[in-house]
C-alpha cells in the first residue's frame, strides 16, 4: 500500500467545485469532490448520466466547457495544482502525462489521416521523434493493443477498421506517451459485449505493464468489479460513496449505490432464484439547477428520506471497520448487510 504520509499521491483532488454560468444564473455542477489516485491504481467513477462523472474528468484535464469554471479546490498532480496551471502547461500534460479515451470510437478518429499518422502525431508532438521512428513506434503500439498484422494496418484509414479496432487505436494513441493517468470515459458503451471484454482485458494488461493509473467512467457495476480496485459513486455533482470495490459492492452503504447495484438484472445460472420485479430507484436525476443545494439531493428518490435529509447536506463519514470506505448519507445502511 502506498498510503505512507511521506510520499504524495500521484493525483490528489481536494474539494474540487465547478460552476456553470448559464442564462438562468450560476449552478454548481461539481460540489466538493475529493479523491486521491496512486500510481498504477485503478478507480471507477459510477453514477447515472448527468451526475458529474465526465465533468470531473474534464476538470482534471482543464477541458471544461466555456461556460464552466473551477470555483474552488485543487487538483494536485504530482504536487502541481492544475487548476492554476497555464494553458500551455496543460497542453503539454494532455495526451502526454494524462490522456483520455472516449465513448464513441467512430468520431474520435480523424477520417482523413491513416491511423499510423494519428499515432505518430502524438509522438512527434510530445516526444519530438522523427518520422521513421514514429512509424516504428506506431507499429509497436498497434501490436501492443493487439491489432492483427499491425505492420500492414498502420497505413489503414479509420473507416477500414471495425468499432472495436478503432477503440484499440484510440487506446494506442492514449498510451503512446506512456501516460501516468488514463481516463476512460465509457470506453465500451458503443461496443459489443465480446469486444468489451477484450478491451477491458487490454486496458488491465497495459495499465499494469506501464504502471498507468486508470480512471474508468461507467454506469455498469459489472465493469467496475472487473476493472477497478476502488470506486467513487457520484450523484448530482456530489460524491456519495467511496471505497474498495469489494467492500462497496458487498455492503453498499448509500441507498443510491445499493439501488444502482440491485436495479440491474444480473445473470445467474439458476433462473428459478430470480425475482419477477426488479428493485427500482424511483424518478430521475434532478435538473442541474437544483444541484448544490443544502439538502440531500437524492432524498426525492430515497425510501429512507426523513426531515433532516431535506434540510441539510449530509456530511461524509467513514464506515467503521472498513478502511477508506466512506459515505455521505443521513441514514446509511449498516456494513453487516442490515436492511
Amino acid at each position: 500500500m502506498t498510503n505512507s504520509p511521506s510520499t504524495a499521491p500521484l493525483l490528489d483532488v481536494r474539494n474540487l467545485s465547478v460552476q456553470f454560468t448559464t442564462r438562468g444564473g450560476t449552478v454548481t455542477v461539481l460540489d466538493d469532490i475529493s479523491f486521491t489516485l496512486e500510481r498504477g491504481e485503478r478507480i471507477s467513477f459510477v453514477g447515472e448520466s448527468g451526475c458529474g462523472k465526465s465533468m470531473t474528468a474534464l476538470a482534471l484535464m482543464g477541458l471544461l466547457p466555456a461556460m464552466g469554471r473551477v470555483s474552488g479546490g485543487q487538483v494536485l498532480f504530482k504536487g502541481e495544482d492544475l487548476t492554476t496551471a497555464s494553458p500551455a502547461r496543460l497542453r503539454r500534460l494532455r495526451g502526454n502525462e494524462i490522456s483520455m479515451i472516449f465513448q464513441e470510437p467512430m468520431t474520435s478518429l480523424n477520417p482523413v489521416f491513416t491511423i499510423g499518422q494519428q499515432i505518430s502525431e502524438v509522438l512527434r508532438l510530445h516526444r519530438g521523434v522523427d518520422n521513421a521512428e514514429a512509424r516504428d513506434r506506431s507499429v509497436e503500439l498497434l501490436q501492443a493493443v493487439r491489432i492483427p498484422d499491425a505492420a500492414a494496418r498502420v497505413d489503414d484509414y479509420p473507416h477500414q477498421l471495425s468499432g472495436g479496432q478503432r477503440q484499440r487505436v484510440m487506446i494506442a494513441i492514449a498510451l503512446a506517451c506512456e501516460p501516468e493517468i488514463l481516463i476512460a470515459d465509457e470506453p465500451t458503451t458503443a461496443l459489443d459485449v465480446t469486444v468489451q471484454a477484450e478491451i477491458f482485458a487490454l486496458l488491465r494488461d497495459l495499465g499494469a505493464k506501464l504502471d498507468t493509473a486508470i480512471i474508468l467512467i461507467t454506469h455498469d457495476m459489472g465493469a467496475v468489479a472487473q476493472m477497478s480496485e476502488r470506486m467513487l459513486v457520484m450523484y448530482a455533482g456530489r460524491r456519495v460513496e467511496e471505497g474498495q470495490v469489494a467492500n462497496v459492492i458487498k455492503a453498499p452503504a448509500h441507498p443510491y449505490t445499493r439501488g444502482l447495484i440491485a436495479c440491474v438484472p444480473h445473470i445467474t445460472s439458476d433462473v428459478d432464484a430470480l425475482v419477477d420485479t426488479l428493485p427500482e430507484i424511483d424518478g430521475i436525476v434532478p435538473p442541474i439547477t437544483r444541484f448544490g443545494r443544502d439538502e440531500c439531493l437524492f432524498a426525492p428518490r430515497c425510501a429512507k428520506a426523513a426531515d433532516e435529509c431535506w434540510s441539510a447536506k449530509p456530511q461524509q463519514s467513514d464506515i467503521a471497520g472498513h478502511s477508506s470506505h466512506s459515505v455521505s448519507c443521513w441514514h446509511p445502511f449498516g456494513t453487516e448487510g442490515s436492511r
Partner: protein
Amino acid sequence: MSDKLALDVQNLSVSFPMRGRGADGRRRALLAVDNVNFLIARGKTLGIVGESGSGKTTAAMAVARLVPKLAGNITIDGIDFGTLDNEALRQARQRIQIIFQDPYSSLNPRLRAGEIVREPLVYAGETSRAEQDRIIDELFEAVGLRPEQKALFPHQFSGGQRQRIGIARALSTRPSLIICDEPVSALDVAVQAQILNLLKSLQGQFGLTYLFISHDLGVVQHMCDDIAVMYMGQFMEYADRKSFFAAPRHPYSQALLDAVPTIDIGAQPTGGKLVDGEIPDLTLPQTGCRFASRCPHARDVCNGGVPQLQDWPGSTGHRLACHLTGTFATS
C-alpha cells in the same frame, strides 16, 4: 393448439440488395436473415439476443412487414400476415406494434403525448373519438403518466417518460404481438429497471405477447421465457430460459455469457477467448458454420456444410446449430 400461438414464423429470410454484381454475374445481395423459425405462445416472451449486425432487428422488422422479406411465412393469430397486401396489410398492422430503442426519435415532435397514443387508433379506424379518449386515459394510467400530461409535447418529458408514451402507443390497438426493439438500452441504468418492471406488469395485466430484441443477456434473462441466440443472420441456439442459462450449449452462446462483466469480484471475464478470425461475407453462399472463423473449438468438419438447428441429445426443445454438438470440452 394453434389458438394458443400468437406468432408463428417459418423459414424467414431477408436480403438487402448491394451495389455491383458478384463473381457469378448475379446481383449482389446481403443475406441479413437466413432461414429462421420461431414461435411465441400467447402471453409469452421470446428474446432474440445477438451482437450488432446479427440481423435480430431486421428479423423483427420483417415480421412486422416493415422491411421486405425474401421468403418465409408469418402467421399472427392464425392469420397469414406475411402475404397481405396494400389495404389489407394496412388494416392488419394494428395486430403488431413496436416499442423502439430511442425514446427521442421515436415520438413525433409535433404531436402532443395524447395524440401520439391516439394515432394508431385513428389509422385502425374502428373506434369513436370518445372511445379513443377513454382508451388513452386508461393507457396513461397504466404506464404511470398523469392525465394532464396528455397535453405536453415530447420534448417536455424525460427519456423514461418518453418510453412510457411509446409503450402506451404500442398498447393502444390491443395488438396480438408487441416487438420490443432494445427498449431500454438507450435509457439510464436506474430508469431501465422502471421500464422493464412496467413491461412485465403490463404483460401480466393485459396478457401481452412480446418479441424482445436485445444485446443484453441480463435483460433477456429477466424478461424472456424463450431465448434465441442469433449470429450473422442465423439462430445458433434456441431454448427455454431455464435450460439455456443453466447450460448454454453453443460455443457462441458461451462466449457471449462469459464476456458479460459480473459483480462477483473473483470472477474475471474470459475476454479474448474468441478467435480473431475473418467475419464471413454474407453476400456469398454459405459453405460451413458461420461462426467457425471465430470459434475456439472449430475443426475441419465445421467448414463442411451448414449446421442445422437440432435438439441437444436427451433434451426436447433445447436446440443448437453446431457440427460439434457436445463433442468439445465445455469450460
